[in-house]
């Protein structure tokens, strides 16, 4: 075989060799330093002191999901703070505190795959939380079964994560995507069954699933869906779609996806169409939704996993015969504010924090740190905490937590559905002001 072909660029003459050697040495030293640093970093990882239960996870602190991920992390930290200052978790007569071991997964699933083994094997986490979003939760789930650790899903809602797999150690705390818009559809069906529905949704995994299931559900109830379109993430002009939905004769608009497209839809609706009922995913629950839209936000509804004004509490739990653990929604909101410079918790904060409370309750109930015992406890539990009810099917899918429907009314966000936790009733129609 031929020798390697020399580069055409002329060979540097002798005087440059000294500088060239210097460059080479510098690069070699840099590489060595880097390797040494990595080695030192890994070798000096402290092992957790006994008396603490280590909960490990990755969370999206940067990347596509940075907002939701950061909110979730703050919720988790708030929950851990509450648990540790209110008696910790008692197992076999001994009191344990929770310690959190987390990394930034940059919203990328390849990082999830390379971090969870480290979290479990190297850092010695005994229990796990899943990352944020369906895609990352899917990538993380395999480690729960492989290493036999319980993993709580607080930010991955697609049903297929549970219905499409045989994994069982992943436990869902939040309501699955398929029921997000169910409340809205139920309300319309009960009160205005002849309304025609338009669905316009973002085509990411979560919004597509939520919207498709809503359509199927509405049609199964005999309602008519006259428009169904999706748009890519980052779309900047939805006026053609909104025009088309109106032209199709729709009365109500369901869908959306995330915050900025929800805002976009509302802004463009101002000049195009005034549906009688609007229900958008995710966007409606953010305080800045109303702050930016002012009067236009009035009477817009949206499904939510949780609001701080929701009336879950020890009394409601008792009336349903369910054990209660943890702070009330108001107490959680207050503690969150104290720890986060006055910010209020979004529902991402609540679902993540709620996951930790459920885990704590399960460990206490199992009276053991053993995965099998705790997973069994989770399977048997039907409880309530500030986030809502918790009960899972054998696959791990959440079956008792209900989505609530919220609506902006005169500048305040109110819970309007279902009736047992509502503060006010649904205002209909939407008038655009």
């Amino acid at each position, binding site marked *: *075989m031929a020798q390697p072909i020399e580069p055409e660029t002329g060979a540097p003459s002798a005087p440059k060799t000294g500088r060239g050697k210097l460059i080479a040495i510098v690069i070699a030293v840099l590489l060595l330093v880097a390797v040494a640093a990595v080695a030192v970093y890994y070798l000096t990882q402290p092992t957790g002191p006994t008396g603490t239960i280590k909960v490990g996870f990755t969370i999206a602190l*940067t990347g596509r999901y940075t907002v939701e991920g950061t909110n979730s992390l703050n919720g988790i930290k708030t929950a851990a703070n509450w648990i540790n200052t209110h008696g910790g978790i008692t197992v076999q007569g001994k009191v344990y505190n929770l310690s959190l071991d987390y990394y930034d997964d940059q919203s990328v699933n*390849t990082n999830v795959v390379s971090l969870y083994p480290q979290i479990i094997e190297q850092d010695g986490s005994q229990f796990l939380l899943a990352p944020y979003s369906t895609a990352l939760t*899917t990538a993380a*789930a395999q480690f729960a079964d492989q290493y036999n650790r319980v993993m709580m899903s607080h930010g991955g809602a697609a049903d297929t994560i549970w219905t499409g797999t045989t994994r069982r150690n992943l436990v869902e705390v939040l309501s699955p995507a398929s029921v997000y818009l169910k409340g809205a559809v139920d309300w319309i069906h009960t009160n205005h069954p002849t309304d025609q529905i338009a669905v316009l949704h973002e*085509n990411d995994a979560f919004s*597509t699933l939520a919207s498709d299931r809503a359509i199927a559900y509405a049609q199964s109830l005999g309602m008519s869906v006259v428009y169904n379109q999706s748009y890519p993430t980052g779309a900047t002009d939805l006026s053609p779609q909104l025009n088309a939905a109106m032209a199709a004769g729709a009365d109500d608009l369901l869908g959306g996806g995330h915050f900025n497209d929800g805002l976009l839809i509302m802004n463009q609706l101002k000049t195009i169409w005034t549906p009688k009922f609007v229900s958008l995913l995710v966007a409606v629950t953010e305080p800045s939704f109303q702050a930016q839209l002012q009067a236009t936000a009035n009477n817009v509804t949206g499904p939510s996993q949780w609001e701080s004004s929701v009336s879950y509490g020890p009394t409601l739990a008792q009336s349903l015969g369910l054990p209660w653990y943890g702070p009330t929604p108001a107490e959680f909101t207050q503690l969150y504010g104290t720890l986060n410079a006055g910010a209020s918790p979004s529902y991402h904060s609540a679902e993540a924090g709620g996951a930790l409370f459920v885990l704590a309750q399960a460990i206490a109930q199992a009276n053991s740190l053993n995965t099998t015992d705790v997973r069994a406890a989770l399977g048997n539990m039907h409880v309530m905490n500030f986030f809502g009810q918790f009960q899972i099917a054998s696959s791990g899918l959440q079956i008792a937590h209900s989505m609530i429907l919220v609506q902006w009314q005169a500048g305040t966000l109110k819970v309007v559905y279902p009736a047992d936790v509502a503060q006010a009733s649904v205002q209909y129609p939407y008038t655009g002001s």
Partner: protein
Amino acid sequence: MKLPKLPVYGPSLWGLGGSLLLLGGVAPWIPVFPLIILVNLLIFAALAYSLNLITGLTGYVNFGHVVFMAVGAYSLGYSVETLRWHPLGGVALGALTALVVSLGIGAVTLRFRGVYFAIASLVTPLAGLNIVLVLPALDDGQGIVLNPAFEPLSWFYTIWIIIAAEVGLTYWITHGRLGYGIRAIKSDEDAAKSLGVNAPHLKLFLFALSGLFAGAAGGVYAWTTSGVFPYAAFDLTFSLLMLAMIVIGGMGTLLGPMIGAVIVNLLSRFFLAIFIGTQFIIIGLVVIVIALFIPEGIVGTLRKYVPELRRILE
């Protein structure tokens, strides 16, 4: 009796090949945690080698390389979930589908020179993403959730085979007659053509190979993350990382992609725990500095300025 003459292979190939063989030999004894980090690294290295075959060797900057990875990932997703194949079949299908797609794309876009090719390549993943998003057969926006068994060793050997093939092919291509033609294209394509180099065929050949390996690596990627989601699979960040890896390591070299992959991938773990949010800022700075001052990357620059290393490093 005359013994057949043994072919002479360069030290770099021995070094890289030897390390790969060693790794392959001890793999069953590597504990799961370092094994998974290794698999992750090798997936990115495989992607870097595949990009090197086109961008590194010919200078055609392909911003849209992630398309082949996504095609491979979706092939695995579809074959495992709908056709009920074993993931290895999915990886093979990924390679095959990506090969076909790359032939199709390459036949059209490789006619464009330099900047036009780069722009056309930037547009392909965007178009691809938007098309996949409306295909119900691929679960449109929802993505495909898979349920494969957890087999880090299988992942390792699959990506190992892919990399070994890439390293071998890269060496063979650059050291054979093809190597002359490729260097000619890189410095002056028109002159090369007038010398009788069949530039279109050569470019298409390299482009197709790059697509094939990226597709295979994409299949392994989907296997390890047990799912395929459109916005994740078509994420331009992968293209950016691959490009950064070969720029840093040295475009067109044998060791460059591996060095680049090690630096970018392993060092990036710092940014997940300590310097959160700064990874790409640093990568951007490094790429700018390298492109402007040492465009041959680490391997290329070392070869250029340290003559002793030229026999060893490539």
